[in-house]
């Protein structure tokens, strides 16, 4: 089973990297960009087909390592 974990900064946390990218996009003339925030994506392959178990394992992975919940939030998506 394939899953995607998306980790992003909480909205209250300043993201200077996102701001720099936003500025670069503006200077490139890309139209309509209002703001950019940078995050991380983890593509994870899991054994078996038990989605509930997989969700539990990925939540565990996020809480223990993939996200720092002081500043980040995460969500899990499954590829169908």
């Amino acid at each position, binding site marked *: 089973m394939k899953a995607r974990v998306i980790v992003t900064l909480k909205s209250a946390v300043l993201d200077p*990297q996102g701001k720099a990218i936003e500025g670069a996009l503006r200077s490139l003339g890309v139209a309509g960009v209002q703001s950019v925030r940078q995050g991380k994506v983890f593509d994870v392959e899991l054994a078996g087909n038990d989605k509930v178990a997989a969700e539990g394992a990925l939540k565990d992975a996020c809480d223990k390592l993939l996200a720092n919940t002081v500043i980040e939030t995460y969500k899990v998506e499954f590829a169908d």
Partner: protein
Amino acid sequence: MKAAVLLFPGSNREGDAARALRLVTGKEPAVVWHAETELPQGTDLVVLPGGFSYGDYLRCGAIAARANIMTAVRAHAAKGGMVLGICNGFQILCEAGLLPGVLVRNAKLRFVCREVFLRVERADTAFTKAYRKGDLLRIPVAHGEGNYTADPATIQMLEAEGRVAFRYARVDGQIDEADGPNGAIHGIAGIYSDKLNVLGMMPHPENHVDPVVGPVDGRGLFESIAGALKAA
């Protein structure tokens, strides 16, 4: 005193931390590999040195914080044992949950490598007895992710409990967040755990311990630790 300097893949300041301890305390510290499960018998100070453990992969200090040896460090800290994290060591302590908050990318996105003024916020802890409150120390910083932050309740708690160890200051001793090296909230350069036995700081006191190199303002930190452990 018996010190242990931890070594993670990518640590690169363990030699300087060990040298500072040797120079100031006269005792040779043990260097302990991250995969060990126990600290040497009788360890009373654990030092997490600077560097780039695991290449700063994922987040600075995130992977080192989950190393085997950290279970022993947690137990040591829970018993009241002294722990000092410098630079990447501070990042590891935050990631390990031994200190609150987190160190994020410098506000101006630059790696900052220069000397700063640090204001000693209190001189009654085991780490700072050799200083006076309000002393300004000349200590270097060298980091890209030293911008300390935490949620407002945590910052309020740290301030209320007197757990800010050092702040980045101007030469006149005033604190100016915007003028600091990394944008850290309230100019926070180092913090204590609730029992004041764990200290994490971004600047490198181990750099300034030898007159051959320059100022020796970092000596006081190691002298304080040695004094506290001798008295204990």
